[in-house]
């Protein structure tokens, strides 16, 4: 890995952060806070959309500000603003303390934060090779236009390419002495092809499978994903999908490709093991979980082939950081071991309220304006050492589907009943792929699904993918989480027809 000199953020790196943070922490203490943290954050975003080779939309945005969070009389207060002077952040600390006093009548149990180590002042940066923000705009647009061209040349009637790039810079100080500076980059390129039936006006669409990644511009030019190869194959696959027959609803064996399975892991394991959801903190909005705290160590989540780990340390994964937004060092820990639920995810306040000793380091706030909330780390399904490749898994299926690429996804409030579609459903007959079928969804309930897992593929099938736009909390916050997984074989999963709603 060649990491160049750290990416520079003019106007942010030169801020007198020690003076600003000290002013906020001093004012918080004066305002009666027993705990306070200060988060200076800049988020630089690039969004660009090219349609049929012509630019539709492009915007570069930079957002810079500071959030001050305080505990006064065991009650949270938070104020965020953009005035980055000692006087300005001091005033925010005073506002946060005043708000905490205003809302004190609504406090339940006083907030309890877990005791965590205080690292020496530290800086962390995610690895990348080429800073995407240094790539000339003309070069970016030309690459996306080329992608549209590959799809059109292959026969797609319409093509669209979309790129979003994030660079997040944070300086975090708290009243317990943490001083952390970190920066990470992630991006998500994607392209869509459309095939339109000139006769009846119906159409079919397909999206690239390339996942979002915490990488630099090199990711669009061959490192980590073969975009050119995928774009060259897509038009024929799209034609086949548009002409594909429907499928008789019923139960089918599924070989699920990592490009689809990551999202099912996100929805059925990732969110279900968030301790704040389990404890009802999100019951009015994002939802709860069927998992209870007392299930840890007891619940059979899936078959013995299911081992799921959480981490914030895997290189190039979307939730990887040095420290979370409570200043807790990134780590890794098991969630499900050989089918048994063994762990959950949380931040300092959620762990403290649950009577746990330590946080797993999952606090995250989307921007300076948002309060840190517990957010999903990277949640990944482990491959079987020496496990089979995808073809071998397909070879074990007499009558089933090979499921590729995430598409529509929906799950209930407790993370039980789900319905997922895919970019492609390939029919398997007698161990071989015999062409696509269309208008298919796989459905089910979380525990039944994971208990039907018969085999996971080997490390050669494993892919790190992830969700770039996961929403939670009010006001709604977006976060990114990585999900690695191998191909996997599930037996007798309910499959429906999305046009008729028939369930077979």
């Amino acid at each position: 890995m060649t990491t160049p000199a750290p990416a520079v953020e003019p106007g942010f790196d030169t801020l007198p952060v020690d003076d600003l943070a000290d002013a906020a922490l001093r004012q918080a203490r004066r305002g009666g806070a027993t705990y306070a943290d200060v988060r200076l954050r800049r988020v630089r975003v690039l969004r660009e959309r090219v349609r049929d080779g012509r630019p539709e939309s492009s915007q570069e945005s930079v957002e810079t500000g500071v959030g001050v969070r305080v505990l006064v009389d065991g009650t949270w207060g938070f104020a965020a603003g953009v005035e980055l002077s000692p006087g300005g952040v001091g005033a925010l600390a005073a506002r946060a303390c005043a708000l905490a006093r205003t809302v004190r009548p609504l406090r339940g149990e006083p907030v309890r934060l877990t005791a965590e180590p205080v690292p020496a002042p530290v800086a962390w940066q995610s690895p990348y090779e080429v800073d995407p923000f240094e790539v000339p705009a003309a070069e970016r647009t030309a690459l996306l236009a080329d992608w549209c061209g590959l799809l059109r040349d292959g026969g797609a009637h319409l093509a669209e390419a979309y790129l979003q790039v994030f660079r997040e810079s944070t300086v975090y100080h708290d009243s317990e002495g943490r001083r952390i500076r970190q920066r990470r980059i992630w991006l998500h390129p994607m392209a869509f092809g459309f095939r339109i039936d000139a006769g009846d006006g119906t159409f079919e669409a397909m999206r690239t499978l390339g996942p979002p990644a915490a990488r630099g511009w090199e990711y669009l030019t061959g490192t980590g994903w073969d975009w050119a190869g995928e774009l060259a194959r897509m038009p024929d696959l799209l034609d086949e999908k548009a002409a594909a027959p429907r499928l008789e609803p019923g139960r089918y064996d599924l070989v699920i490709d990592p490009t689809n399975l990551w999202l099912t892991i996100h929805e059925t394991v990732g969110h279900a093991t968030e301790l704040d959801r389990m404890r009802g903190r999100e019951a009015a909005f994002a939802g709860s979980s069927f998992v209870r705290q007392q299930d840890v160590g007891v619940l059979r989540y899936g078959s013995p082939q299911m081992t799921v780990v959480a981490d914030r340390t895997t290189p190039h994964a979307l939730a990887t950081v040095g420290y979370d937004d409570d200043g807790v060092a990134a780590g890794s820990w098991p969630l499900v071991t050989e089918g048994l639920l063994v762990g959950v995810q949380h931040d300092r306040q959620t762990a403290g309220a649950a009577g746990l000793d330590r946080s797993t380091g999952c606090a995250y706030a989307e921007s300076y304006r948002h309060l840190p909330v517990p957010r999903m780390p990277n949640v990944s399904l482990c491959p079987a050492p020496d496990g089979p490749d995808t073809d071998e898994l397909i070879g074990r299926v007499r009558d089933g589907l090979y499921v590729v690429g995430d598409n529509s996804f929906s799950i209930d409030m407790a993370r039980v009943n789900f319905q997922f579609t895919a970019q492609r459903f390939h029919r398997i007959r007698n161990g071989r792929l015999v062409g696509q079928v269309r208008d298919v969804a796989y459905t089910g309930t979380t525990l039944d699904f994971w208990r039907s897992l018969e085999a996971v593929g080997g490390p050669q099938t494993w892919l790190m993918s992830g969700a770039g736009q996961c929403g939670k909390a009010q006001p709604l916050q977006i976060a990114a989480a990585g999900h690695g997984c191998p191909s996997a074989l599930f037996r007798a999963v309910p499959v429906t027809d999305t046009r008729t709603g028939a369930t077979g």
Partner: protein
Amino acid sequence: MSTPGPQETIEMALAAARGDATVVIVESGVDRYLRWADSALVAAGDADEYRVSVVSVVGGRVGAVSVSGRVGRAEIVDAVDGAEAVARQAPPAPDARPLPEPGAASPHWDDPVRPLASGVLAGLVEQLSTGFARADRHGQVLHGYAEHRARTTFLGTSTGARLRHDGSAGHLELTARDGHGAPVWTSAVTDDFTDVSVAGLQDDLDRRLRWERRRVDLPPGRYECLVPPSAVADLMNYAYTTAGAGAAAQGRTAYSRAGGRTRIGETIAGVPLTLRSDPRAEGLRCAPFLVAAASSGARSVFDNGLPLGPTRWWEQGRLRSLVHTRHSAEELGMPLTPLVENLILEGPPGGGAEADLIARTRSGLLLTSLWYIREVDLATMALTGVTRDGVYLVEDGEVVGAVHNFRFNDSPLAMVRRATEVGRTVPTRARDWGDAVAHVAMPMLRVPDFPLTATTGAV
């Protein structure tokens, strides 16, 4: 160093601009919110936002840069230079054209931005405190969220437009649970919370908790459903945010017909529904001019400042307009109907209240809200999702019990085609995708044969 105000920022940016045309947008505002669960505070926040966006046009090419935070003279000039640098490198924009001819400046252009009344949530804290105590007496817990958002938008262009809109929005959601387990939900939209009665909302929740006492199991199937305004808002937000005329003419939306045509003119609703926008609609006010810091399929930066007026998207059940940019309207030879940031669905006059629709139901389900709604099929606008926080069995005009939740699979367009009755239109907010269109007013709809494709015990 003093930071220039919004109006001064716009003049500074336009003075520094060297492109053929320049648009500067300043958004300034505050969010205040409270969040609670199990009758105890979870979060309270108070957050300022200040954003300057610059769009530069050079030789029919566009550069768009947005800077949020402390923006002084140096940052303003940097943003203008940055946008121009991007524009010089960009390929020609297909929608390029001169900016709209400016009309009269907003009369309140020079007024200072009103500071948010600091007490906007203080009265609510008192009401909630009382509400928590009442819930506790009845063996209930309350979950919920209250948010007040104020934004002032200034738009200035190199062609002389000076337009301003002062907007605000607030809403409160309240969930109650008692010992029986299943939660119930209600919500209110408000400007400043002075017109919200937490006790009144609790009365509604108590009524729903009484409905929950008798539990009924039903199999998946097609049921006549009374779909309440918040759920209709989620469905109509989909119908509206995918209604781009350009995309429809390209053949890639549910509004497409063969041969580059659209479905405009078709009767799409089974009852005379009118879907419309009006920036000056009472209680739903939004900017009466187009604001686009960047282009999208439905909005072009070249249309910044375009005056917006009342627009009928559906009239008496017939699709009348799709969302146009000036580019798509000219290209397709259709009347210009730009995107407006509010949405109203109405039936014929005399639509009933929820109680009236219940009373006229022989056998059906009364829904509360829809959740986790996702597109399943772009071509038909088929969506899936689940019901949330209350599905009630109605028989012979009365609620007789509560049912578990269901997964649904249906298209908003198919639902309005089957709809048989429209209730009274009321201000509401979509529960799942409420930020998609912030200001909406919707009626309850009676939708026969709503496909509920699976049951779930989740609450």
